[in-house]
C-alpha cells in the first residue's frame, strides 16, 4: 500500500496530464461527429460579445464592394418583378401563382468571423434560434454555397463552412448533371475537390458546379464554384476534380440561412423507405 501511494505521488504530474489530455482529446475528436454542446465555443457569453464588438468596428472596410453587389442583386430582382414584363395574355401571371409555391425562405445574418487556416473552419454569425435558425440548415450567400449550421445558441450560430474536413455535400456539374461529393483537401481556401464523378464524363475547365438539392437542405442550382483542373484519379475510374469556390471565405460579410418550408413533409415521406 505504502508503495502504491509513493508510486502515485511520483507519477502524479503525469497522471494529471494524462487525465486532462484524455478528456480534451475525447471532446476534440467527438466534436467532428456530434456537436459538442458542453464545450465553450464562440456562440457563448463573452466570446460572442467580443466578436460582436470586433465586427462593429471592422464591418465598414468592405462597404463599397458590398454596395456594388447589392446594386447588382437589386437589378436582378427588378428583372424578376412582374412590372418589368409586358403582359402577353391575360392569364399568364395568375397561372404562376398557382403553379409555384414558395418552398424556401432565407434568414439573413452578419458574419462575425470567418477563419480559413484551420483544419475545420467554422463561421460565426449573429443569428440564432431566436431568429429561427436550427441545427443542420443550409447556408448560402449571394455568391454561392457557404456550408451548413453546426451549432445554434439563442442569438448566434456556428456554420461549418465547406472548408472543413468531411463536409460531404451533394453537388452536380451544371452541364451534364453528373453528381459527386464535395470535399476539402485542406491545402488552400481557394481549392475544394469533388469525388465520385466518373472519368468518362465530359468536363471543361471553367464549368459551373451547383448544389444538387437532395436532402432538402439547399435549393437546387446554388453555385458552388468553377472547375479549375481535372485529372485522372489514381486507381479509380473517377476524375480528380478541383474547383474554386464562388464564395471568398476571406472576405465573407453576410450569409443567408436556408429555411426549407416543406422539409418536414419531405423528411416524413423519405423516412417511409428507410
Amino acid at each position, binding site marked *: 500500500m505504502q508503495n502504491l501511494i509513493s508510486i502515485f505521488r511520483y507519477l502524479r504530474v503525469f497522471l494529471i496530464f494524462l487525465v486532462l489530455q484524455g478528456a480534451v482529446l475525447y471532446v*476534440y475528436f467527438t466534436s467532428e461527429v456530434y456537436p459538442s454542446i458542453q464545450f465553450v465555443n*464562440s456562440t457563448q457569453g463573452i466570446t460572442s460579445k467580443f466578436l460582436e464588438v470586433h465586427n462593429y468596428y471592422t464591418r465598414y472596410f468592405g462597404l463599397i464592394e458590398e454596395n456594388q453587389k447589392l446594386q447588382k442583386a437589386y437589378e436582378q430582382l427588378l428583372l424578376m418583378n412582374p412590372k418589368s414584363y409586358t403582359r402577353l395574355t391575360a392569364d399568364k401571371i395568375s397561372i404562376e401563382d398557382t403553379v409555384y409555391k414558395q418552398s424556401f425562405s432565407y434568414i439573413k445574418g452578419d458574419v462575425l468571423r470567418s477563419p480559413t487556416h484551420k483544419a475545420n473552419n467554422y463561421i460565426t454569425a449573429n443569428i440564432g434560434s431566436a431568429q429561427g435558425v436550427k441545427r443542420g440548415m443550409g447556408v448560402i450567400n449571394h455568391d454561392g454555397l457557404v456550408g451548413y449550421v453546426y451549432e445554434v445558441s439563442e442569438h448566434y450560430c456556428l456554420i461549418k463552412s465547406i472548408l472543413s474536413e468531411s463536409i460531404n455535400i451533394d453537388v452536380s456539374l451544371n452541364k451534364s448533371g453528373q453528381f459527386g461529393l464535395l470535399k476539402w483537401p485542406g491545402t488552400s481556401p481557394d481549392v475544394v475537390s469533388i469525388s465520385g464523378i466518373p472519368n468518362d464524363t465530359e468536363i471543361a475547365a471553367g464549368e459551373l458546379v451547383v448544389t444538387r438539392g437532395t436532402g432538402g437542405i439547399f435549393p437546387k442550382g446554388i453555385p458552388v464554384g468553377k472547375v479549375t483542373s481535372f485529372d485522372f484519379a489514381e486507381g479509380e475510374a473517377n476524375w480528380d476534380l478541383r474547383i474554386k469556390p464562388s464564395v471568398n471565405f476571406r472576405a465573407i460579410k453576410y450569409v443567408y440561412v436556408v429555411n426549407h418550408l416543406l422539409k418536414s413533409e419531405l423528411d416524413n415521406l423519405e423516412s417511409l423507405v428507410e
Partner: protein
Amino acid sequence: MREFLKYVLWFLLILLSQVFFFDQLSWPGGFTLSFYIYFILIIPHNTNRIVLLMAAFAMGLAVDAFNDTFGLHASSALALGWIRFYIYKSFEPSVGYPENQTPVLSEMGWNWILKVYTLSILTFYTWFYMLSFLRLVGPWFTFQKIIISSISTLLIILVVQVLNQRRKNKNEL
C-alpha cells in the same frame, strides 16, 4: 503575491493579443500563429509542475473558446506544459537554475533561449498539426506548416523578448 498578480496580468495581456491581433490576421499560406505559448515559456523555473500544467491548460482553453477549435489548443498547450519541464531540465546548468530565475532573454542569454525556445515551439506545433492537419493533407504539407509556424512564432517571441530587455535596461539606468 505580487509575482502571482504579475503573471495573471501577463496571462490576460498575452491572451488578448492572441485573440485580438494574431487570430485576426489572415496569413498567406494559411498557417496558425499561436503567440500565446509565450506565456507557457516564461513561467518561472521554480513553479510547481502541477500549477504549470494548469496554467497551460487554462490558456489553451481560453484560446479554444475564441477559435471554435473544440480542445485543439488546450490539448497542445497541455502537451507543451508537460514537456517544458523535461526540455528545460535537459538544458539546466550543472549547479541548477538560481532561485527565482525566469526563463527570459535578459536572464538566460541568447544561447539558452534560442535552443530551448526553438525546441519547445517545435514540439508544440508538431503536436498541434499532427492532431489537426495530418489526416487531411498528409505528412509533407503538415511538415511545411510546422516549420513555417515555428519560425514565425519564434521570431515574434524573440522580438518581444528584445523589446522587453531594452525596457528593463532603461529602467535600470
